[in-house]
């Protein structure tokens, strides 16, 4: 019995197809750079077998503005506006982290009132940023913008407070080396009081709407799971790390700006899935409100900016300061050569590093799961690309 050549060739092909996989062609789908779900110009190249993700590869750099290079030619104070534009959804936290690093280099003592104001705005920023993160996360789960718009309402109020304090809503440029740029305006504290009075009811509304939603549970529970060991090894931080159950919060571990004097708690999750990240953020908003309450109650008087010479040149050396930004551990590493500008300016971007485990989280899930996972990590592309 001899086969025809056709048959032999076909059989060869079949054997290859059978041994290499199931013989169907994987489809490569680009999510982004222009895509409704990617929160900015971020491109995720997903290889799909049917609906199952086989490989996920991120392509970034569409928003790279070379800030680290630019900062080498600006004075320490001139660099503060750059930090706004690194993470434009948490400009205050970025301002703060950079100023802490510069203050460490310059050896500046920050007055207590300035520290309290910094804490106030960092926590307000956390409320605003988490509102945005959770809102867009539910949107990624397929809701039709309703929770997003509700949470935007809270964010608007925070941004209004930013505007009345420093004139800007998004890129605030509010913190200065040695303090903050302006003292609090008279109308801020009443507005903040009203905000603190209204928020518990709003949060209760969100919880009533979302927490027991069966569809949300089905979409987010058990999706994008990562173990605490893997999370630590992948340098994940912020709510993504805390959702795995690791109670690591720089505000508690290495308090800065007087966080040690406020009473608050660190919420941690259990499963490390998307839903836990969402819950951790919800709980963190409540803790932020607790801190804000205490800040308002114990706001000290005094100068809001340390007395610092205009042309301050730090000694040659280096500093690495970190804060707990809404997205995680945000660090600034500065090297000084004694000149007016930093010799090296490096930002440890939590958004980028939290993506380290994106591939591991998405493989094996469906395309929809990958998008929910990406949404739950809460990236800001400005910070990824810098």
């Amino acid at each position, binding site marked *: 019995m001899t086969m025809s050549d056709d048959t032999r060739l076909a059989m060869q092909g079949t054997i290859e197809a059978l041994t290499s996989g199931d013989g169907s062609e994987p489809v490569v789908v680009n999510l982004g750079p222009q895509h409704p779900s990617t929160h900015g110009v971020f491109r995720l190249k997903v290889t799909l077998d049917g609906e199952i993700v086989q490989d996920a590869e991120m392509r*970034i*750099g569409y928003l*790279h503005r*070379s800030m*680290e*290079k630019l900062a*080498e*030619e*600006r*004075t320490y104070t001139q660099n503060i506006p750059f930090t706004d534009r690194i993470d434009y959804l948490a400009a205050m936290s970025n301002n703060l982290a950079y100023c802490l690093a510069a203050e*460490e280099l310059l050896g500046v003592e920050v007055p207590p009132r300035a520290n309290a104001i910094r804490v106030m705005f960092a926590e307000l920023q956390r409320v605003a940023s988490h509102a945005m993160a959770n809102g867009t996360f539910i949107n990624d789960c397929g809701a039709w913008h309703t929770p997003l718009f509700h949470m935007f309402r809270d964010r608007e109020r925070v941004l209004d407070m930013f505007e009345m304090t420093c004139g800007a809503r998004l890129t605030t440029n509010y913190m200065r080396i040695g303090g903050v740029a302006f003292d609090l305006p008279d109308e801020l504290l009443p507005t903040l009081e009203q905000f603190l009075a209204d928020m518990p009811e709003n949060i209760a509304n969100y919880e009533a709407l979302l927490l027991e939603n069966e569809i949300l549970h089905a979409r987010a529970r058990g999706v994008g799971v990562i173990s605490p060991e*893997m999370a*630590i*090894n*992948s*340098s*994940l931080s912020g709510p993504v790390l805390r959702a795995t159950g*690791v109670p*690591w919060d720089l505000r508690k*571990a*290495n*308090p*800065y700006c007087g966080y040690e004097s406020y009473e608050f708690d660190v919420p941690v999750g259990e499963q490390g899935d998307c839903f836990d990240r969402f819950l951790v953020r919800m709980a963190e908003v409540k803790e932020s409100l607790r801190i804000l309450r205490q800040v308002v109650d114990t706001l000290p008087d005094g100068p809001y900016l340390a007395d610092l010479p*205009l*042309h301050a040149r730090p000694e*040659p050396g*280096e500093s*690495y*300061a*970190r804060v707990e930004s809404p997205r995680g*551990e945000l*660090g600034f*590493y500065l*090297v000084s*050569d*004694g*000149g*007016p*500008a930093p*010799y*090296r300016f*490096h930002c*440890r971007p939590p958004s*980028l*590093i939290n*993506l*380290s*485990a994106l591939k591991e989280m998405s493989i094996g899930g469906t395309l929809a799961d990958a998008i929910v996972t990406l949404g739950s990590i809460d990236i800001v592309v400005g910070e990824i*690309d810098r």
Partner: protein
Amino acid sequence: MTIQYDATAAMEIVNASAPGAACVYDGVLFLDPDTLVESIRALRDAEQSDLVFLSNLTAVDHELHFEMVYHLQSLDLNHLLQAKARIFDREDPALPSLTGVYHGAHLQEREVYDLFGIRFEGHPDLRRMFLWDGFPGYPLRKDFLQMPGQVRAGLPGFPHESEENSWPVPGSVPQRPLHPNDPQPEGEVAVVDESEDAS
């Protein structure tokens, strides 16, 4: 603020597993590039250091050499260690990759490769990240787009501050002494000594 881990203690841990792989100068731990992976793995796994979290990984161009800076954090013991390693080959700088020790080094090493051109041997997916393939040069190097006539990157002085408005001397950043295991740069030792004298 951050609690720093004692560099000498870290040196002992490293040297216990690989003798002579680490030294401390001015309170900073310097690691031998050849045994970098083993040293950092020892620091990660040792009970007393427990540096399980790679907080930050970046490079600094010191014009004569590159300095890799690692910030390692222990979560349970709550201390931070700064470790450094130096690369003297400017033409083809290379260092072992930490991806086998920390999964989180993956993206940060790609970033350093992209912007500094430091190759990480053993990195599974070393490609440019922010810039496109074929981008000329490595932007965060100090000699990127260097003009003729010693015009260079950096800010010479504050605006409107005339008296000290001069370009910093190349190498004015204090240079650390070489580790005995480091490859000795040829012909550039004199510059290192000179700058040390200046500081």
